[in-house]
């Protein structure tokens, strides 16, 4: 049974002027890590807040544990949420922050402290109990917020960009911690982010959102390899998928799949002349910026050569590159939707 499900959910702001969420159907699977990914303003946070009960949906239903919870206040939904800012109560100590949700349930003092101790042990913040939030580092704050969410023993965790307030170095280790934490607890988690690295790294499944709709939902590798439309294709991946127009369609291929022809072997390879304008060295890889001809219209594209490829490349030269036919993806040029593959002469 799905812990959280939304059906035909719509949320309009400003008397219908802004369609923040525009018809979303999503259901979580038991114990999974579902990531809502999309650019800012795509409606992912609004969707999360609607699930939490902080926003009232314009249309549609929210189900938690199989019950329609529309109209129920947030407190009655058995959810826990971690805000982007962590929203620690600045006037309360760490311990008081963690037991605050338990007080709401009128749980006795001894039991409250037992649970707080358990959550703190799990996150390694027991020594911080007497501090005030302002005396904590970013990483510590995040853990306190998680502990506070944990003690409620919620049926679902809702996390709203919990890593975006951490500096880049801390983010990688915090991401790792989040993932192992969730695996230990096994609670269904919905995680909102605009960062594809977080999404790919954390998610059991990713729902890519754009303009209030879910464009595609699937395992990270599916979403990456088989994007449902050009938005997903170009939003995921860094650099994004190359799109070459041809006869009312767009032919897409990932930058790492376009390689010098001597490395690409097999029958279905398609060779292309690639005129390199400029190259960048980024963490061992080489990013080549240039123009390809032959596949369709002449198009500016990017190729990514992994560190293992040592073919010498200099700017302002034309090389012969190749891509496997099974790496090509086809989209309708107008709608951006995926279409059937067409034959592309080599």
């Amino acid at each position, binding site marked *: 049974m799905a812990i959280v499900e939304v059906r035909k959910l719509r949320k309009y702001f400003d008397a219908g002027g802004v369609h923040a969420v525009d018809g979303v159907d999503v259901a979580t699977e038991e*114990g999974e890590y579902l990531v809502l990914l999309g650019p800012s303003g795509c409606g992912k946070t609004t969707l999360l807040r609607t699930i939490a009960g902080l926003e009232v949906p314009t249309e549609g239903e929210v189900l938690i544990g199989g019950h329609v919870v529309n*109209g129920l206040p947030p407190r009655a939904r*058995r959810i826990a949420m971690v805000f982007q800012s962590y929203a620690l109560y600045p006037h309360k100590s760490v311990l008081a922050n963690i037991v605050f949700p338990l007080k709401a349930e009128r749980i006795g003092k001894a039991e409250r402290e037992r649970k707080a101790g358990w959550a703190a042990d799990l996150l390694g913040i027991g020594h911080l109990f007497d501090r005030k939030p302002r005396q904590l580092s970013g990483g510590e704050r995040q853990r306190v917020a998680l502990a506070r969410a944990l003690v409620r023993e919620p049926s679902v965790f809702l996390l709203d960009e919990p890593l975006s307030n951490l500096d880049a170095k801390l983010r990688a280790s915090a991401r790792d911690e989040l993932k192992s934490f969730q695996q230990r607890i096994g609670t269904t988690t919905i995680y909102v982010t605009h960062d594809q690295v977080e999404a790919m790294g954390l998610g059991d499944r990713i729902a890519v959102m754009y303009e209030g709709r879910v464009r595609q939902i699937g395992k990270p590798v599916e979403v990456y390899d088989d994007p449902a439309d050009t938005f997903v294709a170009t939003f995921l991946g860094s650099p994004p998928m190359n799109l070459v127009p041809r006869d009312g369609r767009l032919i897409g291929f990932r930058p790492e799949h376009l390689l010098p022809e001597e490395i690409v072997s097999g029958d279905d390879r398609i060779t292309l002349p690639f005129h390199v304008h400029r190259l960048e060295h980024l963490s061992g890889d080489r990013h080549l910026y240039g123009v390809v001809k032959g596949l369709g219209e002449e198009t500016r594209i990017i190729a990514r050569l992994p560190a293992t490829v040592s073919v010498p490349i200099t700017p302002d030269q034309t090389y012969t590159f190749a891509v496997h036919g099974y790496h090509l993806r086809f989209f309708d040029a107008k709608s951006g939707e995926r279409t059937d593959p067409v034959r592309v002469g080599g």
Partner: protein
Amino acid sequence: MAQATLERADVETGRRARPRFADRDGLLAWVFLLPSVVYIIALVAVPFFLAIAFSFSDVTTGNPSFNWAGLRNYQRIFGDPVFWQSLKNTLVYTGIAMALIVVLGKVLANILVANFRGKWIVRFLVLLPWTTPVALSAIAWLWLLDSIFSPIDWVLREFGFIQGNMYWLGKPNLAMASVIAVYTWRTLPLAAVIIMAGLVAIPKDIVEAAAVDGAGFWRRMFEVTIPFTLPVIAVAALFGAVITFTDMTVVYLLTGGGPTHSTQVLASWAFIKGIEGGDLAQGAAVALFLFPLLLAAVIAILTAVRRMEVS
């Protein structure tokens, strides 16, 4: 796990999950606001309409029964030269006081936001006129402006500027000037605090950018500080004008409107007629003349605020 959650959700739904009053924003918004609104309607809006009704009646302190008097009160007021004198005085009083308050308030605010030693004590001293109940500070001034023992006169005599006394409150023009000066002195600190709020709100990087671009003190003042604080100052000045326009305390305590009504303002005259003279109806009619100007000021403020929001 799923089963447990389900059961717990069931319990929740049954016991306390249903939205209560305390969850409903819409209802709460009203319940939170209503007491204040009722209070204000009962003790501001109702008396306001009562005042209008009074002005068309013949109510006095001695005879509180309400009889329709039509426009008689207004006719009597228009026929009274003191009314016209008061109206003129009110306008002069408000105009001059506000001009002084805005200009000096800006200067004072600039001093108070600067960093210097002893800032705390200077702020404390500067705030004194506003935080002291006006009735008391007016009394202090009454002594300073005393017809015989005025310390100000003593200083002027020591320097040889005058021989006898100035009779600050005894001569019409001088009395008006004194009243305006005292009012300005009292209101200045508040104006300075409000303008300070505007100054503090100027984005620091803009001031710094101007300094880097080679703008000196005066150029920064006229091209950054003043344009940025102008909206705040404009609204504050309009408010100040309304409050000044309707104030009577300084006049009432210093001169009682004298000598021979030369400092009488509408508000003090309404008080003298309505409360001291017991003619509630006429007092109310005089006081109501404050209203059209009040309305004009409110419209001006709203327009100014809207224009600020647009830009």
